[in-house]
């Protein structure tokens, strides 16, 4: 906790993120380039044919969409319990990123579903709970914008984020709890062929690093904007 609080200070966060950013940018590019190269080098799957290539952009988007929500939930908890102003900033900065990754998960999934399942969409447990995640992101962002007083907006948004966290295990276990069209988990259980595992893991790392990079940039932007606003108002920065 002490470690976390030290970097919850905006000045320290600016310093730390300034040092980290060049490395995360390079790591993102390396993972994505290598991941894309391998994605287009794999043999066609015996069942899915060449559509297996879509796995490498679908699964990473889904994983990062849920990761971003987890980040928002943790920051919200830190904000509600310890009242750290930077945790609100960090939670808010992650929301548009999470929404984009969620939308990409839904779109790439639909485009895969059409040739493989014969339909873009079914109202089954996995797909519906994932669509709910997108609406949670929209609601979270709308709540921030709807309440003018920033402290109250932060509290309301944090409470919504924590209520919505119940959806994350539902998404994860939906394929086990209900009979769905969506296939079950295949990475941890080792069911995925190893030739597909390398590009998938690289793309997952690339997407996660891209999220981390953009998240840090967005928090930095919010800190600098606040400083500018305080200067305008004549308050000490």
């Amino acid at each position: 906790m002490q470690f976390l609080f030290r970097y919850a200070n905006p000045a320290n966060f600016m310093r730390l993120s300034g040092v980290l950013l060049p490395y995360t940018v390079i790591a993102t590019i390396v993972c994505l380039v290598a991941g894309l190269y391998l994605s287009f080098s794999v043999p066609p799957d015996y069942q899915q044919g060449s559509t297996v290539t879509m796995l490498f952009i679908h699964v990473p988007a889904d994983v990062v969409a849920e990761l971003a929500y987890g980040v928002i939930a943790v920051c919200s908890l830190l904000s509600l319990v310890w009242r750290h102003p930077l945790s609100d900033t960090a939670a808010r900065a992650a929301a548009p990123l999470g929404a984009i990754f969620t939308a990409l998960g839904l779109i790439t999934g639909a485009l895969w579903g059409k040739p493989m399942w014969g339909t873009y969409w079914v109202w089954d447990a996995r797909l519906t709970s994932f669509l709910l995640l997108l609406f949670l992101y929209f609601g979270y962002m709308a709540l921030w914008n709807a309440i003018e007083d920033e402290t109250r907006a932060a509290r309301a948004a944090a409470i919504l984020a924590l209520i919505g966290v119940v959806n994350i295990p539902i998404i994860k276990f939906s394929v086990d709890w209900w009979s769905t069209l969506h296939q079950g988990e295949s990475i941890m259980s080792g069911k995925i062929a190893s030739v597909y595992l390398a590009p998938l893991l690289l793309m997952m790392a690339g997407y996660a690093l891209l999220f981390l990079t953009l998240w840090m940039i967005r928090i930095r932007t919010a800190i600098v904007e606040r400083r500018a606003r305080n200067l305008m108002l004549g308050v000490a920065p």
Partner: protein
Amino acid sequence: MNFDMGAYGAYIWPAYGVSALALIGITVWSVAAWWRAKARLAALERKP
């Protein structure tokens, strides 16, 4: 590398296209906002 996706290309390329567009878009948007915020703060700090 193999870019011949056969008939499935009609689904695969849009999926890659939308993903690339969205991720490049959010990157450009976030970085532009950062530069804008930095320039604004610098301008304010220059004023006595």
